């Protein structure tokens, strides 16, 4: 997606990173920011050089008793997850792996997770990547090192640039370090499965599950397999109690099969939108009010779809070049083109918001050298 360029900058320290960006700013060299290169969605980047963050690697602090982890941005996600797993903990938001839908291969980095605000099924209960992110260090487009937030989970000191950096796709700064609030891994997991529901009935069932007091941590529907999935996590006895209670409460909507043994693979498939990966066409990721999910799919023409987040996250595979946003314009939310070619991969913003976004971009990267064009 980037212009062909031979120059690859690979800083090993934050200081080197700052020097490189400062030089690029001075020479107006446009940089394509790259972590593991597994999530290259967005508009084509106009770049004169690649800035590769993989040299900025390593967990710098992990305090399991305080549920906090700090890592350099280029640290492989797998390294972070392994360190957490060794202490029975996890990143709460279940970051998705984009390699399946984008057909990329590489080593996903923790910085890439933050830059794309990548989140999975548990987002519904514990929030997105931005909700677990508690601190950042980054280098602005002028080459200044800036920190915001920190390593504590309650912090309202100054403006929250942490959330601004999450999902900014490297256009406001190059992340050098990120801090997270983490969570204990659930001791036990149960997945309730209903079969044969149509999209409307399935999403209504998911809404009912979320209205229950049983602390649901995943609510998805896969029309292809006809399966509607609800996940419950926690202490062992509690999980089996809640699974039974919920299944009983929802029995009028159909009988649920309860999977008590390992259902991790089922949820990894939902997380990574696996059911849509194969086959030709554009792939869209749409965020709407959950009950609008089935209406969006119908308005789009009923193409292969997958629902997560109770219906609030819709994945669609459409014939190449479909102008999807026109078809679903009446449903508030946003649609991102994940795979395919369209002039605007990100949802165009209405004017007051667009002006604020442009203003921020100009303040953080006055010469537009960071991932230029990616989000516009």
């Amino acid at each position: 997606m980037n212009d062909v360029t031979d120059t690859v900058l690979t800083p090993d320290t934050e200081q080197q990173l700052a020097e490189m960006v400062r030089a690029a700013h001075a020479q107006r060299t446009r940089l394509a920011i790259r972590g593991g290169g597994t999530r290259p969605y967005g508009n084509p980047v106009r770049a004169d050089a690649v800035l590769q963050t993989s040299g900025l690697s390593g967990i710098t602090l992990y305090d399991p008793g305080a549920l906090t982890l700090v890592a350099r941005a280029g640290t492989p996600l797998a390294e972070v997850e392994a360190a957490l797993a060794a202490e029975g903990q996890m990143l709460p938001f279940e970051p998705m792996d984009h390699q399946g839908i984008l057909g990329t291969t590489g080593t996903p980095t923790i910085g890439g997770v933050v830059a794309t605000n990548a989140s999975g099924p548990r987002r519904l209960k514990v929030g997105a990547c931005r909700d677990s992110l508690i601190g950042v260090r980054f280098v602005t487009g002028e080459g200044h090192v800036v920190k915001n937030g920190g390593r504590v989970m309650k912090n309202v000191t100054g403006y929250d640039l942490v959330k601004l950096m999450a999902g900014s796709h490297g256009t406001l700064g190059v992340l050098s370090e990120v801090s997270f609030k983490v969570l204990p891994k659930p001791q036990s997991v149960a997945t309730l499965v209903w079969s044969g529901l149509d999209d409307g009935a399935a999403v209504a069932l998911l809404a009912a599950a979320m209205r229950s007091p049983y602390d649901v941590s995943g609510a998805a529907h896969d029309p292809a397999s006809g399966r509607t999935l609800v996940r419950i996590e926690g202490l062992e006895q509690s999980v089996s109690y809640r699974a039974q209670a919920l299944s009983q409460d929802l029995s009028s909507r159909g009988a649920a099969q309860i999977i008590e043994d390992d259902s991790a693979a089922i949820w990894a498939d939902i997380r990574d939108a696996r059911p849509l990966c194969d086959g030709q066409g554009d792939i869209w990721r749409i965020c709407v009010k959950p009950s609008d999910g089935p209406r969006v799919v119908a308005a789009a023409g009923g193409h292969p779809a997958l629902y997560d987040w109770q219906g609030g996250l819709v994945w669609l595979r459409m014939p190449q070049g479909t102008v999807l946003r026109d078809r679903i314009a009446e449903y508030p939310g946003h649609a991102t083109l994940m795979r395919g070619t369209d002039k605007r991969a990100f949802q165009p913003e209405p004017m007051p918001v667009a002006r604020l976004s442009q203003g921020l971009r100009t303040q953080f990267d006055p010469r537009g050298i960071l991932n230029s064009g990616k989000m516009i």
Partner: protein
Amino acid sequence: MQMPDPNQAIIARKAHLVARLKQVLPEGAVIHSDNEVRAYECDALTAYKCPPLAAVLPATTAQVAAVLRICHEEAVPVVPRGSGTSLAGGALPTADAVILGVARLTEVIETDYDNRFIRVQTGRTNLSVTGAVEQDGFFYAPDPSSQLACAIAGNIAMNSGGAHCLKYGVTTNNLLGVTMVTMEGEIVEIGGAHMDSGGYDLLGLICGSEGQLGVVTEATLRIIAKPEGARPILLAFDANEVAGACVSDIIRAGLLPVAIEFMDRPCIAACERFAQAGYPDCEALLIVEVEGSDAEIDEQLAKIKAIAATHDPVEMRESKSEAESAAIWAGRKAAFGAMGQINDYMCLDGTIPVSELPFVLRRIRELSAEFGLDVANVFHAGDGNMHPLILFDANKPGDLNTCEALGAEILKLCVEVGGCLTGEHGVGIEKRDLMHVQFDAADLEMQVRVKDVFDPGWLLNPAKVFPLDATEARRAARDVPQRQTQDAAIA
């Protein structure tokens, strides 16, 4: 605490300004007599007072926009105000400023249980948001101590927390969308009933921006299905360090209580005298609350007891009923009132890494002796958000200064051990001049530049959050933004 000198030219134009504001607001919504504006001279940080030029109480978003357009044209500073419960001076006016109060914006606009949100006007109080949905089994999770009085507008401005955020997060984690009016009077819709932003996370930026980026008039808030039940256990220890270690062990064991509250001896003693909660005679006390069905609560409390037992507790008191739960919470909930009865106090709000708890408590004791003022500690231990209460006598000359100096030392300590100046109260004016302890010039510059984008004229709550010297040039310039040029550049 220094505030900028008021602009005398603005004060001289008061009659003109009041007349213009009256044209766009209903009868009685413009408060301008010397007596009446006094009601807005301070918030809950009562040590600092200054009557504003005028106060306005618009009842619709359109009226808020009209007020801001006028103030923008007249280059008059505006200080937004929720219910005035800020402990940081977030709503403290200057003599040349208009207070914009949201107290008349109290409607519930939409309630949607299937999608689990409520949309309200932001003058509505925190507790009455839960009040609007609890009969249907829902609640709004952030629960600051002032929740009976504080407004959602203020909660958003300060990104308020509460006792239960260990499990449910703070305001920013429960906010889905806002209607905001910029200083120029432009109405901006951000977010909505859907999750996440399609572009930059402006919602995350606005939440916690202390009324400096815009006036939020409506908010879409996440509501959550109430758990089946909740019960606390009280754990008493003979040393702060031991209680701190117990907190860490509970968290490491994979349990996630909804609240872990910590009180030290001075605080326990004051609460006992005030509320007669029957707390044990001990150095440190934890109240740990868990949620779920009865059986689930029993399962979690059993695990917590087993962990606590390894720390030789003085006493463990598990609640078995609602009455026992209330008794355990009685003292904690009375803590601030109890302190207020003994003395004037200043409530700090730094956050520290939980693992630094024993060290920080020891240092606070040393500092307390050094400055000659007592400090009682009550705080949310699970997330490291401390609330040291410094006791002083407002009538004793010099005591407030000593108290502020001690407070500054304690907050510096919080930053030194890896924490921050404020966990949930906000910077306001109270911590404004300490910002350089946590941030260097480049860090502050990028925050200040965010305000440049939203409020180029630096009119909205301008003397807060940032050290005055860091913003002086911008406040002095008060240049009218080149809007048309910017729009043209994007198009």
